[in-house]
């Protein structure tokens, strides 16, 4: 298998739809791909004790997160016959309604792409040292808890 070095997955602020579209477009030259699977995490305007979440501010232990993501990437590549895998996570402030996580897998046949995409999302949420502070409309905040 090809050696892969840790890639930076972090993007400052929201992940734009133009970036996502461009990322899809780039795969048109890879004609061995038959299916893509994309997960987009969006900041939800939850209501907490009557106050709306207006944004989430993400911080991370970046070096450790990138190393961990590298391990996850290698493990998922070893388990599924994927052509491509791309993962991007926001850092800093992302407003409600904006995209904060972009996971994109591609394979010759759909099953590998969809299953690998699901596994990646679950592992990213459980294993990457990333934290989200939910900023409320009165400018107070509370710490996000993953379900």
């Amino acid at each position, binding site marked *: 298998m090809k050696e892969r070095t840790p890639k930076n997955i972090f993007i400052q602020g929201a992940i734009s739809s133009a970036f996502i579209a461009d990322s899809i477009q780039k795969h048109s030259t890879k004609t061995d791909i038959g299916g893509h699977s994309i997960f987009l*995490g969006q900041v939800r305007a939850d209501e907490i004790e009557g106050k709306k979440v207006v944004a989430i501010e*993400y*911080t*991370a*232990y970046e*070096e*450790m*997160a990138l*190393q961990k993501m590298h391990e996850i990437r290698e493990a998922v590549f070893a388990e599924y016959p994927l052509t491509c895998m791309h993962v991007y*996570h926001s850092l800093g402030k992302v407003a409600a309604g904006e995209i*904060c*996580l972009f996971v994109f897998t591609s394979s010759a046949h759909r099953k590998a792409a969809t299953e690998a995409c699901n596994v990646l*999302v679950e592992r*990213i*949420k*459980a*294993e*990457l*040292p*990333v*934290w*989200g*502070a939910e900023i409320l409309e009165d400018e107070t905040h509370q*710490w*996000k*808890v*993953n379900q």
Partner: protein
Amino acid sequence: MKILFFGQLVEVVGAKELSIEGGTDIHALTSSLHQLFPLLAQAKYVIAVDQEIISDNRNLQEHNIVAFMPPFSGG
């Protein structure tokens, strides 16, 4: 030795990073930090030494980086 705090623990401790002199072990380090920052004793966290999450006690050297990490909430 460098000690890092993340997420809500930054607020509990009032710093992202502390530096202490000399060697120690995880038990001694956590109990002295719990004395200094009583709210840390009530917080949920895991400890990573040089980016590896540990669950047992171990000796710490000057060059180690110890991270206190609350439950992850990315995505």
